[in-house]
């Protein structure tokens, strides 16, 4: 590599926190950093396909503006000038926002989602929009209408979903940060299978305004990154009350970055009681996943934490309840895609009534998984079935909330593997929706209860060499606790390994691939 290429390569390897300090000291410019990431995208994204849209010119213009203001002596926000990738579920004024669906192909919203506006106000540099399962329905990003994203660890494998694009972009060093959305695990499960960090905040902690709704009572926007501190820094930017979202909390939040830094510095977990959720592990979990998870528990214990097993019997019904509540809300949320005001319009031959046009548009514009869930949800809400399905699911939800409340009376955080398996092969579960749904077993309870959850990498499964994630959950509003505990475990693990997990991922840049092929010969 030329010195220039090496410098660029090194810039993409830095954490957001490190980039931010180099930008603040003017050791590098935002334009350099932005170009480095755009070059990286150019080099690897034809293989990874993390992005649906790359806004190179917009990103460079924003970077130049930040550099000019910094040169003029302005004091800017902590992450000013740091590039970020945005999940395509979020509305952006200057970029198409499709939610991975044909029905919104090319649609450019007339407004920014609140979180996107906050990114711009904090002078982050949006690089583009990332791929996702259509309307966030899926666990593999294979349900994107624009083709799947590939896992940077093994391009034949899924990057998780629905936010596979955001996780893969971060894991493939195409962006140091990304925004995701998590309805049943769409931030945490992709983070787990790509070796990155993903945080689902407390429901109401981050505004949903401008996030194209899947299931309103479950959706939550959150950060995706390579380190716990980076996630916390981004959470500090996007969090807080939004008068445009009635479900957003009015709480004053502590600094999550401070909590993460405290966790990095104080490695003793003395006094912390950790509950291992019996129902979210054991039988059916991949051996390597369980092994790395157990090792992480030992590490936590050796750091002084008290680790106990807890039981939450109602979690057994979480997936069943989730797959009634989610489709019910989604069937209503997706009714607006009718061709009348925006998006795709299919006019059947020979004209037709508005019903004909709406039907033809929805038939052509929605993929099979979306149709499956609209049908499920419509059925669950129908007169005569409401009590048996939607009504019962809401009761289960209440029981799950009670289970959380009961165990949180005794422990400070709960812990489980982030997903039952490492990344599966593309196409492996496409014809088996139920098996796909089961992949979210571990992440769904947090959404049903509205509590925060974070996933961070704990190593590679011995049998396949793929990343394994651990999930911590805390009571609602205790997001800071997760950043603190997460940062401690991350530091302990990296001290033991002597490197970050993602530094072990294959480098996808063409010259390296060429070199390794030569080496193989």
């Amino acid at each position: 590599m030329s010195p220039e290429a090496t410098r660029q390569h090194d810039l993409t390897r830095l954490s957001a926190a490190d980039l931010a300090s180099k930008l603040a000291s003017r050791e590098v410019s935002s334009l350099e950093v932005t170009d480095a990431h755009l070059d990286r995208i150019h080099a690897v994204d034809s293989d990874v396909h993390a992005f649906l849209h790359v806004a190179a010119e917009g990103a460079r213009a924003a970077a130049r503006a930040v550099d000019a203001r910094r040169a003029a002596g302005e004091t800017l926000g902590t992450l000013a000038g740091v590039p970020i990738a945005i999940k395509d579920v979020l509305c952006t004024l200057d970029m198409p926002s499709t939610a991975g669906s044909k029905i919104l192909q090319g649609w450019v919203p007339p407004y920014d989602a609140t979180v996107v506006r906050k990114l711009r106000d904090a002078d982050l540099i949006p690089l583009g929009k990332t791929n996702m399962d259509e309307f966030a329905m899926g666990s593999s990003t294979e349900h994107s209408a624009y083709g799947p994203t590939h896992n940077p660890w093994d391009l034949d494998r899924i990057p998780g979903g629905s936010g596979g694009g955001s996780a893969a972009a971060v894991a493939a060093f195409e962006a140091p940060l990304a925004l995701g959305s998590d309805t049943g695990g769409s931030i945490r499960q992709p983070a787990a299978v790509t070796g990155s960090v993903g945080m689902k905040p407390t429901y109401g902690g981050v505004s949903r305004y401008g996030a194209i709704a899947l299931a309103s009572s479950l959706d939550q926007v959150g950060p995706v990154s390579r380190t716990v501190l980076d996630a916390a820094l981004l959470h500090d930017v996007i969090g807080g009350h939004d008068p445009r979202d009635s479900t957003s909390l009015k709480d004053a939040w502590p600094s999550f970055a401070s909590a993460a830094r405290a966790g990095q510095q104080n490695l003793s977990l003395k006094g912390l009681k950790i509950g291992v959720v019996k129902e979210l592990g054991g039988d059916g979990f991949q051996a390597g996943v369980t092994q790395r998870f157990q090792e992480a528990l030992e590490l936590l214990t050796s750091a002084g934490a008290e680790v106990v097993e807890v039981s939450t019997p109602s979690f057994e019904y979480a997936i069943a309840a989730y797959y009634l509540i989610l489709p019910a809300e989604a069937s209503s949320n997706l009714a607006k895609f009718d061709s009348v005001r925006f998006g795709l319009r299919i006019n059947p031959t020979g004209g037709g009534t508005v019903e004909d046009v709406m039907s033809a548009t929805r038939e052509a514009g929605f993929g099979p998984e979306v149709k499956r869930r609209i049908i499920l949800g419509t059925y669950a809400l129908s007169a005569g079935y409401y009590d048996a399905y939607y009504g019962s699911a809401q009761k289960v939800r209440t029981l799950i909330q009670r289970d959380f409340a009961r165990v949180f009376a005794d422990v400070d955080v709960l812990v489980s593997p982030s997903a039952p398996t490492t990344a599966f092969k593309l196409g492996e579960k496409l014809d088996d929706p139920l098996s796909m749904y089961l992949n979210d077993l571990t992440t769904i309870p947090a959404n049903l209860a509205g509590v925060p959850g974070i996933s961070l990498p704990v190593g590679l499964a011995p049998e396949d060499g793929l990343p394994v994630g651990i999930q911590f959950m805390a009571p609602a509003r205790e997001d800071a606790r997760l950043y603190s505990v997460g940062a401690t475990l991350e530091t302990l693990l990296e001290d033991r390994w002597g490197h970050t997990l993602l530094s072990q991922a294959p480098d996808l840049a063409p010259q390296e691939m060429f070199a390794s092929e030569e080496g193989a010969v």
Partner: protein
Amino acid sequence: MAKAELMDYDRALELFEPVLGFEVHVELNTKTKMFSDAPNFFGGEPNTNVTPVDLGLPGSLPVVNEQAVKYSISLGLALGCSIAPSSRFARKNYFYPDLAKNYQISQFDEPIAFGGSVEVELPDGRLFTVPIERAHMEEDAGKLTHVGGATGRIQGAEYSLVDYNRAGVPLVEIVTDIIYGAEYDAPELAKAYVSTIRDIVVSLGISDAKMERGNLRCDANISLRRRTAPGEPPAKLGTRTETKNVNSLRSVERAIRYEIQRQAAILEGGGTIIQETRHWHEDTGQTSAGRPKSDADDYRYFPEPDLLPVEPSAELIEELRAALPEAPAIRRRRLKADWGFTDLEFQDVVNSGLLNEIIETTAAGASAQSARKWWTGEIARVANARGVDASTLVSPLHVSELVALVDAGTLTDRLARQVLEGVIEGEGTPDEVVASRGLAVVSDDGALIAAIDDALASQPDVLAKIRDGKVQAAGAVIGAVMKAMKGQADAARVRELVLERANA
């Protein structure tokens, strides 16, 4: 449209008992819409008073208008309802292009107000208590314009245009319980009920309450129950129809009468009533079949997950209760005393549904008697002739200006009627009509004296009689002068001047 068979009204009432129920939608006059910060202003360029929320754009979220909640609580209290300490919005799901999200945010099983009643005064002064089941908050839909058809209705139209300016306008829907016992007065009760609701919302100041503009809309449910002989058990309730598009107080009364006569004819002819919505046609005075409606319509209601429950504090409810204006019945008693109207005069005003117009006219400066005389007299006459509500013809402010012109002697009653006609025709304010039509009384004595001197000179015999003290003879001269002045003179002043000139 085939003309429906109608039974004589008296005969229909002999055979059947009318059973009523009303759903009245009140558009609230808040500054912004129910769930967005778009101006609550319907009209203007289509699709300009809209935000991403009103257009149902992906990612947009509703936020409840607190003023609309307060208005709804006040209305609930004025209807004698209990206010729910916690009520919830729900989604009513159905596909229709005037509904941006393809669901309406409404209230379903947890309305903000429930269990009240309203006292309504019938034309004979009898009080009737209408039971109120509930009042709930919801958002209005957009407006469709069907283009290319002959009738402006969807049938036969080539395409339809949607204006979302009205989408999201705050509504309160007031639903009555089933109303029994209206009997012969059912049509009058219907009118009196809607009129009372209008009085209430106007006195609360929460709606412009113009029926012709759709601020106040009434859906009237009617069914007939066959009478049974004394001692026999009562018959089952009949199948109901729901008549929509009833856009005036007058229409409410006519539509109910029509449906009673139509249903009675069908039932007596051995037919059955279809449960359906019916569309009222003001021009023909008939209803026509709309879409079949069944109780099985499945709107897949579920609690709106984007909104929190509405939980007004007890303090707020008490504050709003304390600020309620007096109840319509008490208010009417007070107004009657204040205005010094006789029982007959006051009943006339109440029956005409013009109470608020008279209040506003007196507030603008006219005397109560003058206001009453104009509204229940000439304006009501024109309204009747045109088949519209008097309130739609002219504003209270213009009526008070007209009265002032008469009081100042600028107009005679006869001239004032011509000015009123001009105002109704949209020629401007009374002052502008006086100027443009040249209708002012000639108050220039010089012009009058010249005409009087001419008339006296041409009728010397009359002059002699006047000078002999036969004052009544002056009539002939006054008549001639008024004719010469084309009626634009004050007859009393002419008389004074005639006597003055004759005896000069």
